[in-house]
C-alpha cells in the first residue's frame, strides 16, 4: 500500500488527496497518515504550505487566513532511488536550501 502510494507520487504530476484515497481505497485522513509515514521513512518531503511560520517565504501565505491546508510533497533522493526515477537533468544546487 505504501509502495503503491510512493509509486503514484513518483509518477509525477499533480494529484490531490481525494484522488489518492479513491485509488488506494482508503480514506483521506489515512492517505495523510501514509504520506507522513513515507516522510518519516525518508522517501517524501513536505514542501511549502507550512503555514505555522507566518508567511516565511511560503507561497500560500496569502491563503493562510483560511484553513486552507495546501501541503505539497515531493520525493526525496532516497524516494527517487527507491522508485528508480532518475532525473534526466540534475539540478545545480544553489546552496540556499529553504
Amino acid at each position, binding site marked *: 500500500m505504501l509502495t503503491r502510494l510512493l509509486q503514484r507520487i513518483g509518477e509525477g504530476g499533480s494529484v490531490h488527496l481525494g484522488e489518492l484515497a479513491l485509488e488506494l481505497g482508503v*480514506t483521506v485522513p489515512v492517505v495523510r497518515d501514509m504520506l507522513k509515514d513515507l516522510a518519516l521513512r525518508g522517501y517524501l518531503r513536505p514542501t511549502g504550505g507550512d503555514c505555522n511560520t507566518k508567511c516565511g517565504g511560503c507561497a500560500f501565505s496569502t491563503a493562510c487566513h483560511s484553513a486552507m491546508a495546501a501541503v505539497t510533497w515531493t520525493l526525496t533522493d532516497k524516494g527517487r532511488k527507491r522508485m528508480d526515477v532518475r532525473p534526466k537533468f540534475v539540478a545545480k544546487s544553489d546552496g540556499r536550501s529553504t
Partner: protein
Amino acid sequence: MNGPHTGVDAPSSGLDVGPPRPGTRHADETPRAHTKLRAALAGQPNVGKSTLFARLTGTALETGNWPGKTVERREGRVTLGAGTALRIVDLPGTYSLSTASDEERIARDYVLLERPDVLAVVLDATALERGLYLLAELMLLPVPVVVALNRIDLAERAGTPVNATALAEALGISVTPVIARTGQGLTELTAELQRVAAARESLPLIAFEVDQETSHLLQRAGVLVAPHVRVPYPPRWVAHKLVEGDAEVAALVRSWLPEVEHDALAQLLADAEPAGMALAGARYAWAGRAARCAVGDQTASAGHHVWTDRIDRVALHPLFGVLGLGVLSYGVYDLTQRVSGPLQDLLDGWRSALGERAGAAAARYGPWAQGFVEQGLFESVGLLVTFLPVLAVFFLLFALLEDTGYMARAAFVLDRSLSKIGLRGKSFLPMFVGAGCNVPAVFGTRVIESRSARLLTILLVPLVPCSARLIVLAFLVPPFFHAYAPAVSIGLITLNIAVIALLGWALSRLFFRGERQSFVMELPRYSVPSLTAVGISVWTKLKAFLRDAGTMIVVIALAVWALSAFPGGPAGSGPAIESSYLARIGRFLEPLGAPMDMDWRLIVAILTGFIAKEVVIATLGVLYATASEESLVSTMQASISPATALAFLVITMLFIPCVGTVAAMRREAGTRWMLFGTALLLAVSYLFGIGVYELASLAGLDRIMGAG
C-alpha cells in the same frame, strides 16, 4: 528522533530488560492479582480518549508524569462491585507505535513491560480507518484488546454509521459502541473490560497480506531470534519490528543474540527496507479492509464529504473544471463592474468636486500651486483612489471564493492543465498567488526545490495578471469597448495565461529540460466562508493599496506631473505640455510606438507604469487632463483608437508589473536572470502589442471613435 533506519547503534531509552523500572509501583505491589484488574486506555490523539477516561474513573484519579518524561500519566479506578476494582491507566495518545516520540515509546513500553490485563483501544467512529492502523500495531502485542468505538452518534449524523457487530466480526475482538461525551455504553464497556481481563482472552492473529519476500523475511527473522527472545517480548512482534528497522528492538536483539547468529540476522536484514514498508503498507490495507467491513464499501472512501465530492466531480474535471473556472472568473469580473461601477462614479464625482475646490483654494498661491493640487494630486492619485471600490469588490469576491475552499481547486485544476504543456507541479502555486501581487509570488517560488523549475517560474510569474493590472483594465476597457468590455477583459487575461503556457513550454524545452516533479495537494472541504476571515483578507489588501497610493504613487505621480509641467508651466494640456521634459522623453521613444499608432503620452504612461502598474492611471490622468469640462476618458477616446488602446493594454498586461517584481526577481534568481526576464518580457509584450494592433486594424478598429 530515532529514525527507523539508524541501525543498531542506539542503545536506548526504555526497552532494556533489567530491574523493574521506577514509577511502576502500582502494578508491582500485587503482581497479576486478578482481584485487582489492570486496564490501559490507548488510542490516537483527539479520539475522545481523555473524555472516556474521565467518564470511566470520575474523580478517583492519580496524576503525575511518566518516569523520566514530561508526558502526563493518569491513573484511575473503576469500582466493579463485589469488591473488585479495575485500575485504568490512560496511555498517551499516539498515531502509531514506532519509537518516533516519547508518547509512542511510553505507550508501547507500558503495554509490553507492564502487561495490563486488558487494553481498551478507543477508536473514533468518524475516522475509523486511522484508528484501525494503530489497532493493527497494538494487536501484535501480547495483551487482550477490547475496542471502544467512540462517537458513533457523530458518525451516524455524518451519514457513515459504523456497524459495531460487523467490525467485531472483521477484527475478531470485542467492540463496544460508546459515546464518551454522554456516557452512553460505558457500563457495557466496563463489563466487557472486566470479562476479557479476567478471562485473559488471547488475541486472534492478524493476517497481514504481504508479498512472498516479506513474509519469507519475517519468517526467517522469527526463526533466528525466537530462541533468544527474552521475557516479556513476544517473538512475532520482535520479528516484525526487526524487519521494520526499529532501532530500539535491533539494539535489544543485539544484546540477546550470540555474535554468529547476530551476523546472520544482520545479513538477512540488510535489504529489509522494502519489506518494512510492505509491512506498514499491509497494516494500512488491513485497516482499510476492516473499515470497509464496518462502514460499507461505498462510504468508506467517500466518507462524509458527500457534497464536497459531488462538487469536486465537476470542479476538478479536466475540461469542465477549467470551463467552470472561466465562467466563475467572468462572473467575478461582471459582478465587480456592476457593483463597483456606480460607487466609482460617486467617488469620482466627489473627487472632481473636491479637486476643484482645493484647486480654487490653492489658486491663491499662484497657478503652480493650483496645477499641483488639481493635476498633480487629484487628477492622478485621486483618480487612482476612485478605484478603491473596484478593488474592494474584487478582493471581496476573491476572498469569498478562497474561503469556501474553491480557490484551492482552481489552483489545482489549472495546475493540472498547465502541467500538460510543460509547466509542472508546484510552479503553478506561486503563480496563483501572483494573481494578487507578483512580488510575493516571485518569493513564493522558493517552494520549488529544483533550481531550473524555480528559474522558469520566476521568469513566468510576472505574466500573471496582478490586481494592479486589473485596475488598468477596469479603467481603460469599458470606455473603448463598451458592450465588448467583458469579452475584451477576459480575452486580455486569457492572453496572459496563453503566453505563460507558450513561454513555459518553449523555455522548458530550450533551457530547463524536464525534471519529474510530483506534487500532492490537500484540498480543503467546501465550507461557508467566515465573514471575519474574508473581512480581514479584504482589509489587508486594501490597506496595502492605500498605503502604496498614499506614499510611493503620490511621489511618482508628482514627479510625472512636475516633468509634464516644466519648463513650460502648469497649464496642463496645450502647448505647454507639448514642450515639457516628459514630452521630450516621450518623443524620443515615439518611433517605438509608431507601429501601434501610439503617441508619446501613452509611451510615457507605459514607462511610468514600470514603477508600479497603477501609476499608469495616474500618469494618464496628468497627461490627458484638460482645462475643459470633458472627462479624462472622453479626451482619451478623442485621440486614441480602440486598436491602439488594445495594444497599450496588451503591453501593460504582458510587461513586468513593477520595479518591486524586478527587485524580487533579482534577489531570487540573480542579476543575469533578472535582466534576461525583463528583456524577454519587453520583447514579448512589444511583439504582442504590435501583433494585436495589426489584427485589430484588420477588423477596422484603428479609427478613432471620437468622444461619446
